[in-house]
């Protein structure tokens, strides 16, 4: 879902170790090392080029380090993984609090050189290095990295890691379930405010309050105002516009989930029926386009435009669109173990409504992922 990106993310920022313990990361590292061995790769260099706090595309570094900040992750066959930050040291103590990694080092202005020095110190002075993240670096930065690693053979490893991440591990499913619980509670709070006579804007604010208090790090909320289309919070718009269509996206421990509410509630809304049709089409091996067609086949012409423009959903995980979307033109097949958020937004018609659901892809079909509510204080 396109949602307005907020400024540097500033919500709850701590590693909830009871949710994502060290052995979970050990297992992920073990799987990556296995894939490296199968390809005769001597080390992994994972770059997250985003500045500290920018945290836009953090999926890969979060998967292995639990962090959402920039830097270079160095993984060799036998030594523990290490992170070299882009910063000079002031933030290092806080970075260390958020990761299971023992070795977090300051880049001191030349992170790539520090990474190369670390490889050399570990006896890797030549050979093939798996790289992740180079494709999203600006040209000048990538060239600087390539020049620093002259003498090594750099091999893109992005697709391998993407594939490893595609099928969600049990603890990832639990964490996404927690995010789903936060999103559902936020949407329910918005519904209560609106049902009790509040404005659409007040409903948005209450949803954000609930999500942030429940440990969301990033919160995105869109709601309709007078024109019908979904909008971000804009400060001064007021008024009560029924029905309220409100969408919430939240991120917890790096993992995303979304929820939606139509208020007043509509039994068997057009959006709910569309989502149900998509859910029925989900099974491993099915194409994304099959799922999209299931949504569109039941929709009259005047609904299709909005459905497609807002998007029918996507894989979800460490990014809100975690790999692929549900689109009529897509030839992507649904991999077993992936989690999908399915969505229908219908605006501008008497059937105006919004709905989402979170499902896991299995051979038997879609399995609904229920919200998880733990006492996380």
């Amino acid at each position, binding site marked *: 879902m396109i949602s307005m990106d907020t400024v540097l993310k500033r919500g709850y920022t701590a590693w909830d170790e009871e949710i994502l313990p060290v052995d979970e990361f050990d297992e992920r590292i073990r799987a990556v090392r296995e894939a490296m061995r199968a390809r005769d790769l001597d080390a992994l260099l994972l770059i997250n080029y985003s500045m500290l706090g920018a945290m*836009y595309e953090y999926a890969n570094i979060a998967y292995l380090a639990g962090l959402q900040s920039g830097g270079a992750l160095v993984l060799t066959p036998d030594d523990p993984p290490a992170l070299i930050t882009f910063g000079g040291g002031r933030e290092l103590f806080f970075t260390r609090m958020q990761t299971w990694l023992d070795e977090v080092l300051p880049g001191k202005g030349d992170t790539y050189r520090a990474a190369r020095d670390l490889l050399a110190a570990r006896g890797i002075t030549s050979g093939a290095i798996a790289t992740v993240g180079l494709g999203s670096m600006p040209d000048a930065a990538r060239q600087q990295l390539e020049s620093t690693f002259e003498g090594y053979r750099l091999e893109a490893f992005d697709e391998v890691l993407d594939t490893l991440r595609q099928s969600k591990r049990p603890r990832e499913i639990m964490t996404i379930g927690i995010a789903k619980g936060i999103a559902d509670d936020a949407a329910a709070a918005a519904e209560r405010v609106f049902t009790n006579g509040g404005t659409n804007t007040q409903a948005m*604010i209450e949803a954000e309050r609930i999500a942030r208090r429940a440990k969301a790090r990033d919160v995105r909320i869109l709601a309709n105002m007078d024109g019908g289309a979904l909008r971000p919070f804009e400060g001064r718009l007021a008024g009560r516009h029924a029905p309220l269509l409100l969408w919430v996206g939240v991120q917890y421990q790096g993992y995303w989930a979304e929820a939606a509410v139509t208020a007043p509630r509509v039994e068997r809304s057009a959006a709910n029926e569309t989502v149900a049709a998509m859910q029925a089409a989900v099974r491993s091996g099915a194409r994304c386009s099959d799922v999209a067609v299931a949504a569109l086949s039941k929709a009259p012409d005047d609904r299709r435009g909005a459905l497609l423009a807002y998007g029918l959903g996507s894989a979800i995980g460490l990014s809100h669109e975690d790999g692929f979307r549900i689109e009529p033109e897509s030839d992507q097949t649904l991999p077993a173990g992936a989690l999908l958020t399915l969505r229908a937004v219908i605006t501008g018609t008497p059937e105006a409504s919004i709905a989402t659901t979170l499902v896991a892809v299995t051979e038997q079909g879609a399995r609904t992922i229920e919200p998880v509510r733990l006492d996380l204080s």
Partner: protein
Amino acid sequence: MTANLTHDDAAVRATSLTRRHAAVREAMQRDGIDLLIAYGNGRHAFTGTNPAWYLSGFKQLGPHAAVLLPADGEPVLLITPEWDYARCKERASMELVATAPETRTFLAAVASAVKQRGWLEQRIAVAGGQQQEAATANAWPDLLGQTPLDAEKLISDQAKIRDDWSLNCVRRAAAIAEAGYCNLLETTHAGMREHHVAAELEISMRELGAEDNFQLLSASQHNQSGHFPTNRILERGDLMLAEITPAVEGEFVQICRSAVVGGPSQLQLEKFALLEKALKAGMRAAKPGTPVSEIVEAINAPIAAAGYERYTKPPYMRTRGHSMGLGSMEPEVSLYHDHFMHKNMVFVMHPNQYIPETGYLMCGEPVIIADAGAVPLTSEMGSLGTIG
């Protein structure tokens, strides 16, 4: 009335947008530029600028937006996604094209708009706010049939001196920041968790009309630095650090505050007074024409004189101030930048740093540069506060 704006605000905004276009066109003429593509990537972080927003007055929802501003002729605004057209139309001050958010589709729409208007053969410049994705930045030469000139400085030079609309927004944001902090002091108490305090602060400012906010909010008996909120439970003696940074119409304003649960000690008051003294020295020095290095020296002098010279450098601090500009990242108040003060520049000046006896302290104000130096945009400069 323009949606989401009062009638008066809409009028100020319209006048300022007209001024911005005229000033940028004058600079384009000077630099031999026929068409400016002012791009915005939709990641509304103040670590970079958004030239599209600066020239359109519109906060984009999607990942791409661009204003095509010709030296002569009418400008065009391209936005993403297409379903945000109505919201944009309410505020549009120029021809509007809404397109799908995929990079390829957006760039094709830009190319089409440029070609249709006969601008392809002209000298083109791009300003991307230092935040373009590689796929976008690398696409321009093929798309335009030429390597475009870099117009980052052109936009920044105009935007670093705030006009009426920008000042209108920063004054509103400063008032929201102060009100939010007052609310925090009144409602926070021992036993609360950091992230609950942060959530309530965030929401209080949303209720006051801030469309966005950046904040560091953390507490410790001895802070190493400020950071994002954690699960920590506040207890008596904790010193809370807060960088509170609400935005109004894309203009962020930051106040830096320190407050102690149960009230500050004499030692904390003394050390905070030292940073206050440094801040005021910096404000006095910040007259138009002054290089930022002189302001750094003015701030550092009293701190060094008190025996803390080693702590006036990283990692014990980061910078003595910075812009969070919609259109300009100037000034950065550090020894490593060659920026100068200009009348009506707006930025946060903050001698935030670590002091060994008390830990990290925050003390900073949003200021505007006037003839006699920097003037705070807040109604009351920060003091070492008391929580609970």
